[in-house]
C-alpha cells in the first residue's frame, strides 16, 4: 500500500460521514433572491450607487459632517526613534518589538469558545504595550487599534458589536472619553494621521461561528478622536463575500477607506461618504498584509513557487527588487525593511511552516529575528498588530 492509496482510502471513509442537508436548492435560491432584493431596494432610494456587486446607500446624517481628510501625520505624535527592539523569548513578547518607524504596538490571541470542536464565538485576548511599564500587558478589551505614535488606542469592551467606543490613554491606562453610537460597532481602525478613526458597524457579532458565510456589516462611522462622531454611512457587506468580518481600514494615502472582498482584487474602496471608488493604482493587487511600501513604490506578493518566497516589485518599473525567503510580509518597517513571518534558519528545516517567528527582513537579504518561535497554527498563538511608533 502506498501513501497515496492510504490517503485515498482515508478520504473515501471520511467523506462517507458527510450528511446532505435538506433544502439545499431552496436555500441557494433564497440567498440569490436576497441579493437581488437588496439591489432592488437600493435602486428605489434617492442616492443610488451600484458598482459591481457592492450596494451602497447614503443614509441621512444624524451628526456632524465628516471632516475632510487630513494628509499630514501629526509631527508630535510619532517618534523619530528607529532603534531595533527585540524580545527573543519563546513565549508571548514582554518587551517592545520594533524596527524602523514601526512597532508591534499590541498583539492578540484568538480562541474558539466553548472549544475548537464545537466553535461558537472567537474570543480575542489583547496585549497592549504600556508606555509606563514599558511592557505588553494583558487587557480585557474585546477589540482595539493603536494610534500612530502609540500614545492612545481606540477600544471596544463587552460583547461585540458594542454601542460605545473608548479612547484609551496608553500612559495612564485610563479611558479619557467614551463615545456612544446608535449602530453597534465591531471594528476600529486609526488613520495614519493618528486623529481620524473609521468604525465598522455590524448587525450581529462578526466573530460568531454561527454566522459563518454571512456578511454582517451594516456600514461605518468616521470620527475625529477629539470631536463628536460624524454621521452613519450605510455600506452593507457584499453577500457574495463569505467573511462575516469585513472591517474598513484606511487606504495607503488616507484619502479613502477600504474593505476586503474575499477574492481578487483583494480590496474595494470607498470615499469618506461611503461612495464606491476605483482602487488606487496597485493597492488592490497584493494579498500580502504589508501592502505598499511607505513611499508607495514597492509592493509584495507571494511567490514564485511554493517557496516560501515573497517577491518585492517596483510598481512603476515592474522590476523585481528582491525575492525574500519568508512566508508572509506583514508590515513595512521603513522603505528597505519588512516585518515578516518565517524561519530562515537551518535548524527549522523539517519543522513545518507553522513553526515560525517574527523577522525583520532587509531588501538586501539580511534577516534579523525579532521574537522567539511560536506554533502559529495553534489556538491561542499570538498575532502582532503594527503601528507607526
Amino acid at each position: 500500500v502506498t501513501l497515496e492509496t492510504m490517503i485515498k482510502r482515508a478520504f473515501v471513509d471520511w467523506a462517507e460521514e458527510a450528511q446532505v442537508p435538506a433544502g439545499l436548492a431552496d436555500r441557494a435560491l433564497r440567498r440569490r433572491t436576497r441579493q437581488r432584493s437588496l439591489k432592488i431596494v437600493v435602486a428605489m432610494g434617492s442616492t443610488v450607487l451600484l458598482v459591481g456587486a457592492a450596494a451602497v446607500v447614503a443614509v441621512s446624517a444624524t451628526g456632524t459632517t465628516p471632516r475632510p481628510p487630513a494628509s499630514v501625520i501629526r509631527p508630535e505624535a510619532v517618534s523619530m526613534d528607529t532603534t531595533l527592539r527585540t524580545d527573543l523569548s519563546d513565549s508571548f513578547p514582554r518587551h517592545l518589538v520594533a524596527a524602523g518607524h514601526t512597532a508591534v504596538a499590541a498583539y492578540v490571541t484568538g480562541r474558539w469558545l466553548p472549544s475548537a470542536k464545537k466553535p461558537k464565538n472567537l474570543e480575542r485576548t489583547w496585549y497592549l504595550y504600556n508606555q509606563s511599564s514599558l511592557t505588553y500587558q494583558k487587557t480585557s478589551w474585546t477589540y482595539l487599534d493603536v494610534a500612530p505614535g502609540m500614545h492612545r488606542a481606540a477600544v471596544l469592551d463587552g460583547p461585540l458589536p458594542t454601542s460605545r467606543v473608548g479612547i484609551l490613554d496608553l500612559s495612564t491606562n485610563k479611558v479619557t472619553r467614551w463615545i456612544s453610537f446608535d449602530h453597534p460597532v465591531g471594528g476600529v481602525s486609526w488613520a495614519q494621521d493618528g486623529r481620524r478613526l473609521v468604525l465598522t458597524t455590524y448587525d450581529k457579532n462578526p466573530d460568531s461561528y454561527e454566522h459563518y458565510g454571512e456578511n454582517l456589516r451594516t456600514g461605518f462611522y468616521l470620527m475625529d478622536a477629539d470631536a463628536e462622531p460624524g454621521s452613519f454611512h450605510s455600506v452593507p457587506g457584499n453577500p457574495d463575500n463569505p467573511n462575516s468580518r469585513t472591517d474598513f481600514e484606511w487606504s495607503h494615502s488616507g484619502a479613502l477607506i477600504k474593505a476586503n472582498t474575499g477574492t481578487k482584487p483583494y480590496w474595494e474602496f470607498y470615499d469618506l461618504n461611503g461612495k464606491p471608488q476605483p482602487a488606487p493604482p496597485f493597492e488592490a493587487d497584493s494579498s500580502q498584509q504589508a501592502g505598499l511600501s511607505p513611499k508607495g513604490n514597492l509592493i509584495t506578493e507571494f511567490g514564485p513557487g511554493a517557496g516560501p518566497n515573497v517577491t518585492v516589485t517596483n510598481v512603476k518599473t515592474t522590476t523585481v527588487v528582491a525575492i525574500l525567503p519568508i512566508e508572509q510580509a506583514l508590515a513595512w518597517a521603513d522603505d528597505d525593511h519588512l516585518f515578516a513571518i518565517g524561519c530562515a534558519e537551518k535548524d527549522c528545516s523539517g519543522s513545518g511552516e507553522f513553526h515560525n517567528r517574527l523577522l525583520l527582513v532587509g531588501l538586501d537579504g539580511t534577516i534579523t529575528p525579532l521574537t522567539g518561535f511560536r506554533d502559529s497554527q495553534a489556538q491561542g498563538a499570538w498575532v502582532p498588530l503594527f503601528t507607526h511608533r
Partner: protein
Amino acid sequence: VTALLRRPLDTEAEQQFRDFVRERSAALMRVAYLLAGGDQHAAEDLLQIALAKTAARWDKVDSPEAYVRRVLYHQQASFWRLKRRREIQLAELPEEARPDGTPALDLKVTVRTILARITPRQRAVLVLRFFEDLPEAEVAQLLGCSVGTVRSTTHRSLARLRELAPELDELRTIKEVLQ
C-alpha cells in the same frame, strides 16, 4: 441600474437547478466536507455559498458541476486566507490519534486525523489529486496555478503528513516505489 440587476430564474431554469442539486448534492457535499476538514456545518455553508453563486450564473454556465466545484475550491481558499489575515487563527486541533500498532484501520484513522491538521490549501490539493483522482494539469487549471505549484504543494503536503505521523514513514509514495 436595471441592467445590473440579476434576472430571476424562470420556472424551467429553476427546475433544472433543483434537479442538478438533487442529483449531485451528495457528491458535492462529500467534497465540501473534506475541504472543510470534516466540519459538517462549515461544509454546509461552503456548499450553500457555492450553489448560490452557481444559481446566480445558471444561464451562463456550461457545466454546472465543474463550476460549483471550482467555486468550492476557490471559496475555501479565500475564506481561510482572509480569516487568518490579521489576527484570527482558525486551525482546528483534533486530538492526537496515534495507533499502538500499525494495522490498516488504525493507520487510516491516523491519516484522517492529520489530514485535518494540514493547511486548507494543502488539503485541497490532496483532495483533488487522490480523492477526485484528477491529473496534475487539471488540478492546476482548477486552482489557477502552475503544474509545478501543484507538484510542489503535493510533495510538501505528503512531507507534512509524515512529519505529523512518523509511522507513515513505512509507507512509500508511488514515486518512491517507481524509483
